[in-house]
């Protein structure tokens, strides 16, 4: 990549290592030739996808010495990836050699001419798939596979175990990328130091993708056992849960679609078409999110309904699993209706207004400030 490697190819381009490539090809033919048995039907099929986040979705597999292997690599990422299978311990040497290819690298799919490379699948475009058939080495060992596209090889790799025995436990496996290994055992290992994993005092919040909401979701830790999802895209409380808060490990890996994982039990989900109607039930307002203010660290959301300013602050109930929602509508001449569904998991109490079944009618003066208490059934 750098100038050094560039200068190298600059002055030596005439003698670029073509014989090496030929040698490599004949070497791998030789290898396959010696041990190949014409018995493709019994080949073990391994399917690996290159996925977002510079990773193979399969970080290891095992095959028996001398057995037939059919490896299908599909690139499901949005950037190019290849796969090189090397002799044991040669992963970084191969990665570094690929880096040194400089200008020539792309043309040669970042497959350097080296004896350490046993088999390879060239660079695949996004969506492309290629199959590699080969005979596993007779010699038992851990044969790395790696993507040698510049920048990928440090993290994008896996291990082919050639063995008759069981593979070691994944979490102890030093031949797979650290995250992959740690994740099977304990998802929190790598995030111990992060804010989300610290024992921290509620309330606090994360704006993050959450299931069951628009992508403009906000997760609020309300108390040490109560949390809710408020949706800034639709300006409404979507659901609430008790238990743990969130596990953001997956989404924080980056470079792939993911949600924060709810670490508790959802006890309430809004089932109305919208909880506040204006003038008369059925008149759903046009919403606009305006932001929030932290009041003793609790967010007070600000949004407009048909242009009317509404402020909503949610606090935990004093006993049991309950939410106390305080609404403020400082300036309106219009009647507001608060609606709920009888089967949404909670029972309702309104501090003001005229309750009519599953509706509460709020006059402009009621609406100046009112609370809706929602207690888990």
């Amino acid at each position, binding site marked *: 990549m750098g100038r050094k490697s560039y200068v190298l190819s600059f002055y030596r381009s005439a003698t670029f290592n073509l014989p090496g490539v030929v040698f490599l090809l004949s070497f791998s033919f030789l290898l396959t030739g010696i041990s190949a048995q014409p018995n493709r039907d019994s080949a073990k099929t391994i399917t690996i996808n290159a996925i977002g986040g510079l990773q193979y979705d399969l970080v290891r597999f095992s095959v028996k010495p001398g057995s037939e292997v059919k490896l299908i690599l599909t690139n499901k990422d949005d*950037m190019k990836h290849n796969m090189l299978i090397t002799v044991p311990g040669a992963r970084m040497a191969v990665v570094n050699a690929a880096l040194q290819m400089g200008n020539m690298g792309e043309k040669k799919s970042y497959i350097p001419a080296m004896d350490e490379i046993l088999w390879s699948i060239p660079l695949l475009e*996004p969506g492309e798939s290629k199959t590699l058939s080969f005979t596993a080495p007779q010699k038992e060992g851990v044969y790395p596979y790696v993507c040698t596209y510049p*920048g990928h090889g440090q993290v994008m790799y896996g291990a082919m175990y050639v063995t008759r025995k069981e593979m070691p436990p994944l979490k102890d496996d030093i031949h797979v990328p650290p995250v992959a290994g740690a994740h099977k055992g304990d998802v929190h290992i790598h995030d111990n130091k992060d804010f989300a994993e610290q024992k921290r005092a509620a309330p606090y919040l994360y*704006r993050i993708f959450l299931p069951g909401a628009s*992508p403009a979701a906000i997760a609020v830790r309300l108390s040490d056992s109560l949390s809710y999802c408020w949706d800034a895209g639709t300006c409404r409380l979507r659901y609430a849960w008790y238990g743990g808060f969130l596990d953001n490990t997956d989404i924080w890996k*980056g470079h792939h679609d993911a949600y924060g994982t709810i670490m508790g039990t959802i006890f309430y989900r809004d089932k109305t078409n919208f909880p506040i109607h204006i003038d008369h039930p059925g008149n759903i307002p046009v919403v606009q999110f305006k932001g929030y203010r932290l009041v003793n660290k609790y967010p007070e959301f600000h949004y407009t309904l048909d242009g009317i300013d509404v402020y909503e602050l949610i606090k935990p109930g004093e006993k049991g699993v309950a939410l106390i929602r305080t609404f403020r509508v400082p300036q309106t001449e219009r009647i507001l209706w608060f609606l709920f569904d009888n089967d949404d998991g909670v029972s309702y109490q309104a501090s003001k207004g005229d309750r009519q079944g599953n509706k509460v009618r709020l006059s402009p003066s009621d609406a100046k400030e009112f609370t809706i208490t929602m207690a888990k059934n």
Partner: protein
Amino acid sequence: MRRFVFYIISLTIYFFSGCHNKKESVEQPTDSYIVETISTPEGVKAEIGALTFLSDGRLVVCFLRGEVMIYDPRSREWSLFAEGLHEPLGIMAISASEFLIMQRPELTRVKDTDGDGVADLFETVTDDFGITGNYHEFNYGPVIDKEGNIFIALNSGSSGGDIQPEVRGRLDTTGRDNHGKEMYSVVPYRGWVMKLTPDGQLLPYASGFRSPNGIGFDADGHLLVTENQGDWVGTSKLFHIQEGNFYGHPGSLIWRKGWNRGNPFYLPVEALDSMRTRAAVLFPQNIIANSPTQPVCDMTNGKFGPYSGQLFVGEMNSGRLVRVVLETVNGTLQGACIPFIDGKGLRKGINRLAFAPDGSLWVGQAAYGWGGDNGIQRIRFTGKQPVDIYDMHLTDKGFDLSFTQALDKSAALSQNNYRLKHYYYEYHKKYGSERMDEQEVLINKITLTPDGKKLSLTIDSLKAGYVYQLDLGDLRTIGGDTLANHLICYTVNQLRVEKE
């Protein structure tokens, strides 16, 4: 002219400081630039989404997991200003207690209203654009022009991901190639640069962006955006953004006012090609940069070395920055790119850059699932003038190259020290392009000005639409110092019709 005066000044400074330093050569720094690593706070993943400086010298940092923290370089202490933001990727300071921050769902005013040093107000400045939850719909900016307009850039969605069951904004899948693997725009203004007027209206400004992870202005106020190599982007590049233009990635076209041509991915390539505006500067893949990021303009008046008024662009894929020099030819902005730093402890993954009031350049790194490092580094000019290409200009016969120091004449006039080639990149839906029609270009004549600082290369023929890559060999100063960088790539869009 201004540049010429600057030369004389810097030459004078160099001359005197050079003489002076001879007596105390022990203290003469060996490098022109030093890279220092800044320790980031315990417990916060140091993926840097945004950097800016306060006028008092404090650094404000957005971390991708949502924290906004302030670092005081004097005490080396960090304090938390805000948290919980959704993937903040841009920041602009209004004051020491108020910032505009670009996060995933919106542009937000984050403000400390009670003076306790911690933000308590998060006001939505604009969320008038769509989001689908696709991981790649990053948002960039804000940057502000002289009239007070704010610009942001919205990434297209990735074919490596999908959309969530619920999206924000009107869903229209016409902006997606169902047969291809291209990135897409299925909610309004993904793949656009947007303008937020001082009265708060968010207006579509320019279309055709795939992954514009870098937006900024040059010294003359031109709005610039970097683009990453991929589908419809043969190699990474720097665009000069002008209102109404289309910059090449098709999906975003469906949000053009009055668009009636159906799925833009199915238009003939020739039609799309004729609509698009070409890049001011191409960054050849694997030669200059693979993932360019934020452009910043050196307005330090020499505190950061001899490159005042030039641009520095982050690059995620290697431990280097890219320096960009621009000029206007036939009314069109074009120019050249040059590696800067390259190694010296500079880590990969450079996502954001900011000049400190003291003239040092701070860079923030973020791997975020791609290859790279995390953290913050500071690049400091030591005062030792680098030996470097200063800039490159197109002439009617070839190129003029200026250098920061006088070159040794015999080396400078030796044909063996130059290798010039040209190539172009194909515009197509495929991911990236090979270098097409890559050919050596013969240099017919080399001349050096008497001051030893300006080379003129005369070449056979110049072609528009090509990158001219010049590799310099063993050029050196009269004192024997060698060049810091040996490579420069000039993108020729326009030819000079006659000598100016």
